[in-house]
């Protein structure tokens, strides 16, 4: 007790940079407001919660922009455990905008059917808050807290359709495998702490395998931590939850999981690789190489035989994750670090825009057809040409066909692989090239339904698209086209994204 008192007396409150924390604070304020208001307003006024949620997300963008424009390049808090650098700002902007589009996707969807609106928005915003924290966390503990912060609401969102066994399955599966992965990761982190005697990433980075030699402990620590995030980004062989969860969860939640949650996993992975154990590249480079090749290939092969559009997109997003991982397999080689980081960030930006667009179309079409079968897209072009053309654009972007966004993302990924001028880099580039062709097999299949097949049951009633979905489509289609035709725009942001304290370049 006495010693505790002595410690307590020594404790100095950390100075908090409230400006640096402003995006998180706005979001936290907004989600509290949603939770409280939900208790007091009656059913007819629940639409206000939607408005507040989307307003909160846009309001949180303001401090992000101001921070980006401010003089101070890097803001460090809590002894370097929480850092606001350009990388975190770019990613926060991606999370907030993706979150905003998810709100647009959700708003009409959750008004139909038995949903609990207030809690839905609350959990969505909480998960996004966890993602913002993840972008700035530079300490094993704060990374773990942020990860749980963003995951636990997501587990609940996945099981949101309470009466639907598939949705329950989605939630339970996601939860069990997620907790398992967290446990594995924690074990890895504890080993890491044991070796480096610190939880601060930069300190670990300085000590971990600094001598150039590493033992089994080092290898286990790195592999376990990477596995934890491989689960989050649904990299093969840690992907098994994704298809079931994506299919069972409400479609807007699936959009959220496949874009924002996945990006959060990549953010943490990149930060760890670049600041905590860059010197252990001999351990993680081959591991990521294998993960990436497996993820692309197996994701693609399984996607080829899906009949359900959401399941197909689930496997497609697994395979896309492999492309994001691709440049990281050579990131530790001299001169490749910067381009690999650029590639990962650009890929996430473009992928977010495109994949959210795909989900907007899926929501619009399922409004009419009430079906998730790919065959329900038959003849879409003949009775809903705009939706048909937009879906074609999104799918073509995912397939990486110029002049749509996806091509520049894939291009930059290939570029950083080949820039490494290593055999491993070339080999992975060829694997990626072959996979990007195979991927067209299933994207092209949906296009074929849209353009070339007859309308099922000759049911050509028009599809009514709610205003919020229209806005989401305009945003995502616009972004997909702009990133593709003027790639400089996306690359500009991707280039800004430098991680403060990164050791590899």
């Amino acid at each position, binding site marked *: 007790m006495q010693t505790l008192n002595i410690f307590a007396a020594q404790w100095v409150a950390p100075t908090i940079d409230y400006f640096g924390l402003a995006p998180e604070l706005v979001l936290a304020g907004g989600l509290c407001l949603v939770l409280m208001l939900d208790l007091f307003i009656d059913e007819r006024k629940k639409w206000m919660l939607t408005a507040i949620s989307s307003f909160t997300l846009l309001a949180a963008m303001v401090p992000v922009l101001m921070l980006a424009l401010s003089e101070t390049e890097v803001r460090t808090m809590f002894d370097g455990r929480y850092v606001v650098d350009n990388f975190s700002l770019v990613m926060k902007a991606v999370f907030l905008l993706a979150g905003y589009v998810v709100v647009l996707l959700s708003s009409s969807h959750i008004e139909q059917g038995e949903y609990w609106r207030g809690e839905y928005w609350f959990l969505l915003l909480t998960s996004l808050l966890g993602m913002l924290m993840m972008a700035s966390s530079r300490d094993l503990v704060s990374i773990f807290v942020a990860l749980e912060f963003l995951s636990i609401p997501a587990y609940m969102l996945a099981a949101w359709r309470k009466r639907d066994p598939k949705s329950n399955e989605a939630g339970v599966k996601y939860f069990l495998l997620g907790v398992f992965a967290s446990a594995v990761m924690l074990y890895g982190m504890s080993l890491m702490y044991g070796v480096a005697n610190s939880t601060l990433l930069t300190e670990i980075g300085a000590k971990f395998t600094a001598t150039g030699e590493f033992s089994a402990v080092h290898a286990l620590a790195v592999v376990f931590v990477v596995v934890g995030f491989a689960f989050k980004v649904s990299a093969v062989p840690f992907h098994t939850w994704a298809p079931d969860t994506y299919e069972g969860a409400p479609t807007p939640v699936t959009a959220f999981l496949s874009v924002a949650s996945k990006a959060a996993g990549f953010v943490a992975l990149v930060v760890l690789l670049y600041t905590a154990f860059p010197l252990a590249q001999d351990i993680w480079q081959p591991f990521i190489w294998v993960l990436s090749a497996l993820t692309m290939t197996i994701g693609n092969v399984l996607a080829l035989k899906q009949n359900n559009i959401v399941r197909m997109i689930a496997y497609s997003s697994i395979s896309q994750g492999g492309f994001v991982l691709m440049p990281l397999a050579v990131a530790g080689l001299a001169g490749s670090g910067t381009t690999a980081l*650029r590639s990962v960030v650009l890929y996430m930006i473009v992928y977010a825009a495109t994949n959210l667009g795909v989900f907007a179309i899926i929501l619009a079409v399922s409004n009419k057809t009430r079906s998730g079968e790919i065959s329900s897209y038959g003849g879409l072009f003949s009775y809903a040409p705009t939706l048909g053309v937009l879906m074609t654009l999104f799918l073509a972007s995912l397939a990486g066909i110029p002049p749509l966004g996806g091509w520049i993302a894939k291009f930059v990924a290939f570029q950083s692989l080949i820039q490494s001028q290593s055999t491993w880099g070339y080999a992975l580039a060829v694997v990626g090239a072959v996979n990007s062709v195979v991927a067209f097999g299933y994207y092209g299949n949906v296009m*074929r339904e849209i353009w070339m097949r007859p309308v099922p049951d000759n049911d050509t009633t028009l599809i009514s698209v709610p205003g919020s979905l229209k806005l989401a489509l305009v945003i995502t289609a616009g972004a997909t086209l702009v990133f593709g035709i003027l790639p400089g725009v996306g690359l500009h942001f991707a280039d800004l994204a430098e991680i403060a304290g990164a050791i590899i370049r």
Partner: protein
Amino acid sequence: MNMLQENNWLLSVGTFLPLLGVVVLLLTPKASDQMVKLVALVTSIATLAVGVYTAFKFDFDQAEKLQFVADANWISVIKSSYLIGVDGISLPLYLLSMVITLLVVIYSLDHVPSPGKPKAFFSLLLVLQTGMAGTFIAQDLILFFVFFELVLLPMFFLIGVWGGEQRQYASIKFFLYTMFGSALMLVAFLALFFKTGAESFSIPYLIENGGSIAKNIQIWIFAGMFVGFAVKVPMFPFHTWLPDAHTQAPTQGSVILAAILLKLGTYGFVRIALPILPDAAREWAPYIGGLAVIGIIYGALGCLAQTDMKRLIAFSSVAHMGFVMLGISTLTSFGVNAAMFGMVAHGLITGMLFFIAGSVKERYHTLEISKLGGMLTSMPRLGWIFGFCSMASLGLPGLAGFWGEFPAILSAYNPAEGLNETVFRVFMVIAALGTVLAAAYLLWMFQRIAFGTAKNSSSHDHAHSDDLHDVTTFEWIAWTPMLLGILVLGILPNLLFSVFDPAVKITLSAFGG
């Protein structure tokens, strides 16, 4: 550097004007079919007008230099820029793409294939035109790649939506083949970029610096490009998408595919692969030549085995493109000139043959050669046009086809320094045999379709008498320029050779002329 920058807005306008037409089409949601056709027609006429003006402004005395060069900032981070320009090699192909698109649009005015949807059909044609023209003007590898790929989706839909019975299979096959090629090509481009010091993707820059790459690395980079371009040409053994795509595509799709799209591959060899990687080209040349003559013989034998008129013409494309590739593989300016001429001639002739096939299908409702016959008696004008094109296709002197084939064969007698003469002379003999086979299958096809008496297939008796009308006005308008082109280029080949030659000589300077 050898570049002229005057009037550098011309190429961008000519290339992107069709997209303006597409935007107009998209912004008029309730446009009537007449309106859609009018917009498409006006757009393609305007595009061609810009093209003709470009040719008018082109300085033919300096055809070896890139002209109308524009260099704008595009993706500075990856050192790729919007660098465009035309020289004697690209100008004729650039113009050809505009002419063909206009003629196809005119033909489509009263031939929108089933299932209709003229708005989508014409929009795709116009997007396709932008992609084709852009490929010929791009002087930056990444820009080239983007345009090269831009043609894929419109053609995919043209085949898949408006095609024949097996259209879905054919369209996916077409797409996967080409995409596979271009994915490897992109990897090769990137490797080239880094091996030349990661300075620029500009083709003139790479031509200056590509030769310094070590030979064994050049060979690998060339391999990647080879796959990309060879699929597009298509060369044996990558040709299997072509018969399906051609047979299933609507007439308009077949014409554009034959006249322009196949040329993107051969153009890529001449513009990119050969001048940038000369050492690798020398190593690869015998293999390319070998595959080319295999293609010639294989294509010809394939033709002899066909019972479907359109499929026969498709296989004849494989053979003809074999002659073009043989000319390229000699690495001499004589051979490449022949190849360039062959590209234009094949575009006009085979394009025309596909037009005729389309009209035959429309009138007889079948393309089975055994069910056709007596065209000269029932429709003399169409029959004679068909005969004229068949003669041109088999390389009759005095018509355009001759000047692509004959010099290509001749060039193999004397390939560039460092290539094995014996091997190429063997190729020459085989290719010459190929022309005999070409005469055989074309005359055989013509004889069975045009001679004899009209056959009455029982099911379509009454339909026939109504449908068997001779060449219509729209067909005359669409076809006359092509027929004249075949004739004029046949009599005055120098019109084209004099444009190609200076640029070809510069391009092949690494091979000693």
